[in-house]
């Protein structure tokens, strides 16, 4: 409990810093943000209205405090482009992003864990060499290029999967899955590489532990030793890495969503940047970074739950 309270308390300055930085990013746009939003030839009356609306004539610290007060009350302002509340737009975009993130996570685990275990049990053999090489290539592959290659393969050369768009699960589950396949594979492959390396390293360490030797000596079949005894213990560091990666995924979705026109928070951010819709940019960056911090916190806590030694130490 004390550990959880401590971690939550440490979060306060970081979240405040996130707010300051998100605000500062918008405030540092060169020139007048109103001109940036409305263009050089805007009507002076419209400029005056917008300046008053965003309190742009106030000193910067006061503007920050006013904005921060709004944020604390769950108000991220309204989109300049659509007039809709920013929070509502972000909420709508988060659903497809979370779908994509979970699907990518599933893809990465299905590839990485068996590959990592096989590589560790056949250490220095051809299977290990191949898995390690593929993982290293996966780490060096820019995900948007993999996305483009998949589109060329599965949407153009062999037109079996759609190259863009999103279908709601409730509307048509089969079409929803077909639309999800390529983006999830793109994002999942990048995660799989790191997870596979971690699974392999953790398994190699665990397989030489005393309790594994005991299990073998007791006559537990080799398969049981590897998949039941060793993997269970090797998963600990893997859980941490997966958690951290899920956080990083919040960044990775920006590019993948743009390649596949996936209407998530990443695409929302990029589109808003081009439309100079700064309240949306600011809100989306703040929400994504907050999610990133929270996912990292949950990962830390989950690790403590899984590993009783850490709980005792805390």
């Amino acid at each position, binding site marked *: 409990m004390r550990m959880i309270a401590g971690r939550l308390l440490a979060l306060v300055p970081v979240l405040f810093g996130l707010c300051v*930085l998100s605000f500062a990013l918008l405030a540092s746009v060169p020139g007048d943000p109103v001109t940036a939003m409305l263009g050089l030839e805007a009507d002076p009356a419209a400029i005056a209205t917008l300046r008053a609306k965003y309190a742009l004539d106030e000193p910067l610290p006061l503007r920050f405090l006013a904005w921060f007060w709004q944020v604390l009350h769950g108000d991220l302002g309204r989109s300049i482009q659509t007039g809709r509340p920013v929070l509502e737009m972000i909420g709508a975009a988060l659903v497809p992003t979370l779908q994509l993130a979970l699907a990518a996570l599933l893809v990465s685990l299905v590839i990485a864990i068996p590959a990592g275990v096989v590589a560790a049990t056949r250490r220095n053999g051809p299977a290990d060499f191949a898995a390690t090489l593929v993982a290293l290539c996966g780490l*060096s592959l820019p995900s948007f290029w993999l996305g483009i290659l998949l589109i060329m393969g599965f949407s153009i050369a062999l037109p079996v999967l759609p190259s863009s768009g999103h279908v709601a699960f409730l509307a048509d589950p089969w079409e929803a899955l077909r639309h999800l396949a390529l983006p999830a594979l793109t994002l999942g492959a990048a995660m799989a590489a790191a997870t596979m390396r971690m699974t392999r390293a953790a398994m190699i360490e665990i397989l030489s532990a005393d309790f594994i030797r005991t299990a073998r000596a007791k006559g537990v079949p080799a398969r049981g030793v590897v998949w039941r005894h060793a993997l269970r213990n090797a998963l600990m560091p893997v859980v941490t890495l997966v958690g951290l990666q899920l956080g990083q995924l919040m960044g990775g979705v920006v590019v993948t969503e743009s390649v596949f026109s996936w209407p998530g928070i990443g695409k929302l951010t990029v589109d808003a940047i081009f439309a100079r819709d700064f309240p949306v940019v600011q809100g989306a960056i703040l929400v994504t970074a907050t999610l*990133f911090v929270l996912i990292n916190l949950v990962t830390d806590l989950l690790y403590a739950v899984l590993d009783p030694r850490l709980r005792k130490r805390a």
Partner: protein
Amino acid sequence: MSAVMTRAPLWRRLLRDPRAALGLLLVGLAVLGAVLAPLLPLPGPETPDFLATLAPPGGAYPLGTDDLGRDTLSRILAGARVSLLVGVASVGAALLLGGAIGLLAGFLGGWVDVVLMRLMDVLLAFPGILLALGITAALGASLTNTVIAIAVVNLPVLARVARGQALALRGLDYVRAQQALGFGPLTILWRAVLPNALSPILVQASVLLASSIITESYLSFLGLGVQPPTPSWGNMLRDAIGFLDQAPWLAWFPGLAIFLTVLGFNLLGDGVRDRLDPRD
């Protein structure tokens, strides 16, 4: 490890490791291409040939041409210059500033440490690409701003490594001896701490080169990094999206260039880390 091997220079030890040697080769090719591009008998990267638009690879254009008839090979070599420049400049800037912040925070401790490292924590609280995106959105898309954005992303990573080193070194006898002799903190940092903290910081910096090149390609791909007509691998892929069915080579080659260069830096980074890690 034998005494002879330990004394051999780093590059020679790297060449003995097949993975690191491959990394060195790939990075070397990228550097060579970037440096020698202007000397090669190729059309300029921005020179259009309207009689040869979307020409497939072969003949006068070994890697084909784009929709304006510009030579893909020439543009990839020019893109290498941009990618390497952004990578080295952004990591270099982060190395100088992040190294200084981390060493000061770790060595001085107290409130300096708390303030500086909380600031770094805030930067680390953003997913890297998102922070870079926010910065380029605020500053405007250009080559210089791309370097600044990626440098800010790299800053906290290097500051943390430098701080860790300074913390470990400040309790050692030879550092405390300098304090006893009455040298000021900056002198001690410069003369005793920096030289001994440098190698782990440099290893981390070499690892960051790969991620910086990828981040640059992401930003340019999204249209927020290096701006046309200056070719970069990312903005070449952005242009290629519209021609995937007619001219797939426009997407193959720039992507392959990013992949091989980043693979090279990753292999080299792994090799350097293995060689410099005394536990290895």
